[in-house]
């Protein structure tokens, strides 16, 4: 009974964290699924957004202004990776690693040469705080994060339906065809990376407020969590969610599932130091499942599988 009550107690926190990281994962979806690039910049931007937001607020900025600045900072980081990749011919994965490494120094600078900076929810007007996670009010971070998720999915759905957004999708789907149809592939890659990292930094800003501090290590392994959410969402919901907006929703739900699973194993008594290893194993397994399915499942001639392949 102890396990159940402990778990129920921890559930709201897990859902709130899942929703905030879901926003981050939607950013990862844009690069990993739409643009077909593995962008490791996000480990840096997931620390940077919070750092920018917290430091600006401590210097008197309004929370919305601080978050907008975090978004812009994330876009700049994405632009750097994009330029390293398209303008300097560095493979995308390496370009992301380089930016991420540089961001570690930049984030320390932003944080005033400290590894972390706290922000007191009593003194500052924060949008979300883990203190309110069990409250039934409009200050509940689950509600706030859910509203953010819905609004951002709606905006992204609109954007990827415009001529410009379709160009980004085409760039990821088939660069040869895109160039032949007059699409500036390099520009679109940079734009996609900017959008993605802007979203990640925005999620980071929310996460720092939720936790009450910005940390230079907040984004360590973020790409793995983002990928976990994308892949879990796809594996669980791909048969029912076909529309682009619903696919983004699946990513957000994937992040929640991920944090629920983490919460369950933690409640079962797992050492929290082992979490990163668990995350890596979860992602490896979920990446392998579709591969194995394609390799071994269809041979047995299951019709339904073949049709959906």
């Amino acid at each position, binding site marked *: 009974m102890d396990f159940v009550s402990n778990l129920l107690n921890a559930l709201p926190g897990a859902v709130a964290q899942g929703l905030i990281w879901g926003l981050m994962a939607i950013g990862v979806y844009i690069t990993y699924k739409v643009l077909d690039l593995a962008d490791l910049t996000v480990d840096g931007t997931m620390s940077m957004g919070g750092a920018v937001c917290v430091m600006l607020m401590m210097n008197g900025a309004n929370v919305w202004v601080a978050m907008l600045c975090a978004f812009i900072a994330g876009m700049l980081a994405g632009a750097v990776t994009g330029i390293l990749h398209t303008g300097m011919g560095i493979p995308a994965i390496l370009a992301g690693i380089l930016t991420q490494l540089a961001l570690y120094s930049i984030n320390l600078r932003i944080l005033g040469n400290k590894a972390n900076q706290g922000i007191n929810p009593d003194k500052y007007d924060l949008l979300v705080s883990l203190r309110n996670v069990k409250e039934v009010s409009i200050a509940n971070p689950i509600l706030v994060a859910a509203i953010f998720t819905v609004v951002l999915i709606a905006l992204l759905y609109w954007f990827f339906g415009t001529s410009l957004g*379709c160009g980004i999708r085409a760039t990821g789907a088939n660069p040869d065809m895109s160039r032949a149809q007059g699409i500036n592939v390099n520009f679109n890659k940079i734009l996609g990376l900017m959008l993605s990292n802007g979203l990640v930094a925005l999620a980071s800003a929310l996460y720092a407020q939720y936790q009450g501090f910005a940390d230079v290590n907040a984004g360590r392994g973020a790409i793995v969590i983002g990928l976990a959410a994308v892949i879990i969402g796809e594996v669980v919901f791909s048969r029912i969610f076909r529309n682009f907006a619903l696919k983004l929703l699946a990513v957000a739900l994937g992040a929640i599932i991920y944090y629920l699973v983490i919460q369950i194993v933690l409640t079962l008594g797992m050492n929290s130091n082992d979490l990163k290893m668990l995350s890596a194993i979860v992602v490896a397994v979920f990446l392998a499942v579709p591969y194995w399915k394609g390799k071994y499942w269809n041979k047995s001639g299951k019709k339904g599988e073949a049709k959906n392949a």
Partner: protein
Amino acid sequence: MLKLKDVYKTFNRGTVNEKKAIDGLNLTLEDGDFVTVIGGNGAGKSTTLNLIAGVFPVDSGKIVLNGLTLNNLPEHKRARFLGRVFQDPMRGTAATMGIEENLALAYRRGKMRGLSYGITNEERKIYRERLATLGLGLEDRMTSKVGLLSGGQRQALTLLMATLQKPDLLLLDEHTAALDPKTADKVLQLTEEIVARDKLTTLMVTHNMKNAIQYGNRLIMMDAGKVVVDIRGEEKKNLTVRDLLEKFNIENDRMLLSE
């Protein structure tokens, strides 16, 4: 009018793999010319098309289309003037996007891509009509993902996309080579219909001598990076595969002897 003037292109210059692909190519296409291009492997046919399209730059020489020098324009900017169909049916379309979405991308070739709708209902009507002219029933599957189509259907769609905005020059790079004979004939027929209807200036690379004779008003044969045979008008109409083979062999022998 397309004009290639003294075009040279060498790949991997200064290495053991150095390959002189285009060696002083001169070629002029009049408006409305439908030119078929034949030649052995490595003759420079595809390289010529890729140089025109801007996939890679020329080493020297000039490429002029309707008075505009293309040399310094990047590939995506030249696309405004060019319609292209590749040999590989997978290359010309985006598999994960719908038929109508692919057409909408092509419809915006050469136009500003901003925050207006990526596809409108009026456009859908146009696409439906144009798809119907293919006679493949694609007009009833407009939202289907292109990845579900066969190679022939994809090539027909790519052809439609290449000509949806009338191009100044249509580049067909062995666009039926990967198809079965029946489908290849169908796609070639469509090609001829569209080229005739829109009076398109066309360069069509093919390995099939019969097709090279049957289609177009002019035939060129390339070897070692230049044009070695150029036949047009009445002479082309009376051409047979046997004539062509003879010329091909003579040219090949001459090349061999000269080296």
